[in-house]
């Protein structure tokens, strides 16, 4: 037994946080993991409740910036953040106990505009608006990152990876049925 194996390796569950996902957990055996290019991941943690969560998002299509209210372009990021916060609250986190770290938002190739930067700016603005303190960030640059986050302990680790993530800039649109209205 080495000192590192306080948790049996066989018990550790790695959960990949894919683009569009928002996960939260109190399980000490869970590690959230993701690889980010220009996407951004926000890790939230409430130490009093030992609840952690992570999302992974890309803002809306940068192309039709003209004509559309810029605030509306943030809706994908906003939705992802809302799902993350709701997932945290459901597991016992307190809205005012949340602390954040921001990762990602690299400039992965020319011609994509400043999509990584816009993702970072969105995350910073959102967290400021929601009065969620940001404890740290590892953002920007030109390299992909791999993030590991242990939600129950609130421990995150960020490593630069040379291999590019499978980033085809899939602009995830919500499903066609999004915003469906049911009048009673």
């Amino acid at each position: 037994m080495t000192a590192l194996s306080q948790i049996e390796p066989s018990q550790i569950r790695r959960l990949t946080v894919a683009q569009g996902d928002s996960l939260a957990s109190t399980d000490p055996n869970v590690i959230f993991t993701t690889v980010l290019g220009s996407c951004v991941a926000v890790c939230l943690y409430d130490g009093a409740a030992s609840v952690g969560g992570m999302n992974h998002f890309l803002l809306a299509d940068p192309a039709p910036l003209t004509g559309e209210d810029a605030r509306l372009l943030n809706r994908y990021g906003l939705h992802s953040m809302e799902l993350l916060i709701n997932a945290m609250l459901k597991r016992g986190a307190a809205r005012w106990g949340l602390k954040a770290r921001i990762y990602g938002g690299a400039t992965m190739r020319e011609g994509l505009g400043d999509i990584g930067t816009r993702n970072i700016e969105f995350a910073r603005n959102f967290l400021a608006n929601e009065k969620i303190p940001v404890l740290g960030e590892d953002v920007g640059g030109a390299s992909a990152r791999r993030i590991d986050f242990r939600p129950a302990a609130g421990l995150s680790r960020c490593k630069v990876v040379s291999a590019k993530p499978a980033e085809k800039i899939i602009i995830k649109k919500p499903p066609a049925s999004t915003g469906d209205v049911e009048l009673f």
Partner: protein
Amino acid sequence: MFIAFFGEEKMSRRILTVDDSPSMRMLLRAALTEQGFMVFEAEDGVDALEKLETVTPDLVITDINMPRMDGFGLIEALRSGQLCAGLPILVLTTEASEEKKARARNAGATGWIVKPFDREKLGAAIRRVLH
């Protein structure tokens, strides 16, 4: 041949949005003002009940998960009063569960909209409810 000089005079319909997230309130404000609605905001159910005394909206759009008083509590409070018994209330939420939807319907909600919302669908639903 008559020419309409004045068009149809229209008063902006007033909407009270209730959501604990300032970012979501901002997004709703952008989407609704662009469609000609006048927007007022409250940050949870308790705040909404206070604002209702002065705002007199034509419609309320409320989130479900909120501190102090959630969306269910707000709907029940509005429906139990006399003044707001007929006020249309649309629930706008990330929740998709049938159970919660049924609970909102039983409490007296007018409709249920799942986030992320689509501006056109939201606007159409509002106009339909307001006629």
